[in-house]
C-alpha cells in the first residue's frame, strides 16, 4: 500500500531495541524535493527513524521505500541517501578535500572530474581555499559545511540531517538555517531533517512530523501545525499555548456551545467528531491571539475580565500573565511593543480585559 506519488515512504515501521520500543508502527510519506523535519523531544525515536532511512538500523517490522524501491535488503553503502551526522564525523586523518572526495571513489569518476566537483562543492558551501585544512583546524560551522559538501557531492536522492545545527551557537545556527534552506531550494534534493528545536523546524520545513514515544502525533506544514494542532500534546510542544477545560453544552447547525473554565460561555464552529453534547474537551488559544486592554473594546467581541498577575519584558514583546476566574492557571498574553504603546502601563493586580477573535480558538480532544 505505498503511495505512488510519495518519494520516501515508511509503511508501518517499528524498531525495537530489546524490550524498548523506539519506533512504534510509524507510517508517513515524503514527496520529492521536500524539506521534511522530524521534530520531537530526545528519546522520541526521530534519530532512529533517520538511521533506518540511512541503513544503520533495520526496522524490526515494516518497510521503507525510497523512490519506489524497498530498502530493507539494501546496505548503507548502496542506498541513494547520504547523511550529515550530528557530530559531522569529519575524518580526522584526511584533509577537507579528501573528506569531500571520499565517496566519489565509489562512483567511478575520473580524477579531473573529482577535482572539479570538489572545488564546486567547496564553492557551494562557501569554503573555497579550505581544501588543505584538517578537521581540527575548522570551527564547528565549517565542519558542518564540510559534512554537508561531503554528502551533497554524492548527489543523493535524499539527504539525511541529524540535528546538524545542534552544536552551533544561536547566531551561527540562525545563519546556517537560512543557508540550509537556500541550499535545499537550489539543489532540489529531498532533505529529511531531525531536530528537537521547534523553532528551527518551523523555520526550515515544508512539512513536519511531530514525534513522541515512537509515534508521529501529527504530520503537517508548519502553518497548519501552529494553527491547527490535532492534540494538546502537539499544541503544547509547538510554541506557547493557553489551555482551558471546557464542557460541550449543545451542538446545533455546526455550532457548539461551550462552557469553559475561564473564558466563559462560547459559541464556536464545531467540525470535529469528538465534539458532541456533554463531551469534555480542551480549548486552546495562543498568547498572541489574546488582546489585552484596560476597558472592554466592544460588546460584540468575546471577552473576559481578569487580574494582571505578572509581566515579563522580552525586548520585542511583552508577556503578561492574567488570572481569570475559573481557569486553573493564569493565561499568557503576548503583546508587541506597538500594541501596548497606546495604553497606559498596566499595574500589577489591576483589572484588565482579554478579548479574542472567534477563529483564534482551537478545540482539542482531552488526552
Amino acid at each position, binding site marked *: 500500500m505505498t503511495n505512488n506519488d510519495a518519494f520516501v515512504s515508511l509503511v508501518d515501521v517499528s524498531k525495537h531495541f530489546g524490550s524498548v520500543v523506539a519506533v512504534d508502527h510509524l507510517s508517513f510519506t515524503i514527496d520529492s524535493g521536500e524539506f521534511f523535519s522530524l521534530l520531537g523531544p530526545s528519546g522520541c525515536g526521530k534519530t532512529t527513524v533517520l538511521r533506518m532511512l*540511512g*541503513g*544503520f538500523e533495520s526496522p524490526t517490522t515494516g518497510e521503507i521505500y525510497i523512490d519506489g524501491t524497498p530498502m530493507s535488503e539494501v*546496505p*548503507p*553503502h*548502496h542506498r541513494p*541517501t*547520504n*547523511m550529515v*551526522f*550530528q*557530530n*559531522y*564525523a569529519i*575524518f*580526522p*586523518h584526511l584533509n577537507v578535500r579528501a573528506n569531500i572526495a*571520499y*565517496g566519489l*571513489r*565509489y*562512483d567511478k569518476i575520473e580524477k579531473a572530474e573529482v577535482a572539479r566537483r570538489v572545488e564546486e562543492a567547496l564553492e557551494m558551501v562557501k569554503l573555497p581555499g579550505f581544501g588543505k585544512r584538517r*578537521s*581540527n583546524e575548522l570551527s*564547528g560551522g565549517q*565542519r558542518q559545511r564540510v559534512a554537508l559538501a*561531503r*554528502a551533497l557531492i*554524492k548527489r543523493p536522492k535524499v539527504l539525511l540531517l541529524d540535528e546538524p545545527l545542534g*552544536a552551533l551557537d544561536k547566531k551561527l545556527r540562525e545563519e546556517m538555517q537560512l543557508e540550509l534552506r537556500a541550499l535545499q531550494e537550489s539543489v532540489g534534493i529531498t532533505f529529511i531533517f531531525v531536530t528537537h528545536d521547534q523553532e528551527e523546524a518551523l523555520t526550515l520545513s515544508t512539512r513536519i512530523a511531530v514525534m513522541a514515544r515512537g509515534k508521529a502525533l501529527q504530520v503537517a506544514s508548519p502553518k497548519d501545525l501552529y494553527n491547527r494542532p490535532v492534540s494538546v500534546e502537539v499544541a503544547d510542544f509547538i510554541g506557547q499555548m493557553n489551555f482551558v477545560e471546557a464542557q460541550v453544552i449543545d451542538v446545533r447547525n455546526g455550532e457548539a456551545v461551550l462552557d469553559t473554565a475561564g473564558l466563559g460561555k462560547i459559541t464556536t464552529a464545531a467540525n470535529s467528531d469528538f465534539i458532541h453534547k456533554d463531551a469534555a474537551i480542551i480549548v486552546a488559544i495562543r498568547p498572541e491571539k489574546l488582546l489585552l486592554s484596560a476597558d472592554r473594546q466592544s460588546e460584540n467581541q468575546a471577552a473576559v475580565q481578569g487580574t494582571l498577575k505578572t509581566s515579563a519584558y522580552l525586548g520585542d514583546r511583552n508577556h503578561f500573565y492574567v488570572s481569570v476566574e475559573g481557569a486553573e492557571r493564569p493565561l499568557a498574553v503576548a503583546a508587541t511593543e506597538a500594541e501596548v504603546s497606546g495604553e497606559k502601563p498596566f499595574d500589577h493586580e489591576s483589572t484588565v480585559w482579554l478579548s479574542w477573535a472567534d477563529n483564534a480558538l482551537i478545540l482539542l480532544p482531552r488526552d
Partner: protein
Amino acid sequence: MNEVSYIDRPNRPLFFYAILYLAFLYIPVLFLPLFSFNDNIYIAFPLKGFTTQWYVAMFNDQPMWAALNNSLRVACVSSAIATLLGLFGAKAVTRYRIPGVKPIIFVIMLPMVVPLIIMGVALLILVTRLGFNLSLYTIAMAHVLISVPFAMATLMSRFEGFDPSMEEASSDLGAGPWSTFWRVTLPMVAPGIVASFLLCFTISFDEFIMAFFLGGTDPTLPIFIWGQLRFPFRLPGVLALGSLILIISFVLVFFALWLRRWGVEDTKSGI
C-alpha cells in the same frame, strides 16, 4: 586566609614518602648498571674500578647473540599475532551489539590474572599430548595467549576513543565494509596498533616461565641469562646485557604509552 590552595601547599611527609617509594622501586634495578661497570668478577662492595670489559665480553658472546635472535623472533611473531587478534576482538566488542559481551571480555582478559606457572604447566601438558615438539613456535603461541589481553586493553581504549559515526559516515558515502576498514578504521586506530605491538613485544621479550616450560633446545634470552647465573664469571656479562635491555625496555614502554594517548583528543567527536 592562606592564599595557596590545599592541593598546592607543600606537604613534607608526603614528599619523603614519595622519595622512599621511588628508592624502593628503582635502587635495586640501578645496581645492574652500577656493577656492570665494576672491575671485579664478584658482585660486592666496595667497587674496584671502572671497566667496560664486561660489555666487550658480552658483544663477543655468540650464544648470547643466538638467544637474543631467538627472543626477537618470538617477540615479533607473537606480538604481531596478538595485535591482529586484539584488533579484531576490540572492534567486535566495541562496535557490535553482541549478547553477553561482558562475559566475553572477561574471558579474553582472564589470562592476565591466571598465574603463569599454572598456564605454563597446562600448556606443556596440552602441547606434548597433541604431539608437538617443544620449540620457539610453542613459546610464541604461549606468548600470544598471554599478550592478547594487553593488546585488547590497548586497542579497546583506542576504539572507544573514536566515534563509531566515522565508520558509519564511510559506509554512508559508499564504502563497503572492507573499504571502510582500510580507509577509516585502520588509519584511526594505527597509533593503538603500534602501541599494542610494542607492549606485547616487551611482554614476550622478558617472559621467562612460558619460555622455560615450553622451550626446546633453542633458548630465548631470559632462559639464556638464567643459564649463565650458574657460572660466577659470567655474571658481570649478564649485568651488562641486563643494563642494555633495561634501557631499551624503558624506551619502548614509554613510547607505547605515549602512542596510546596520541591523537585520541582529535579523533574524539569534539567540536
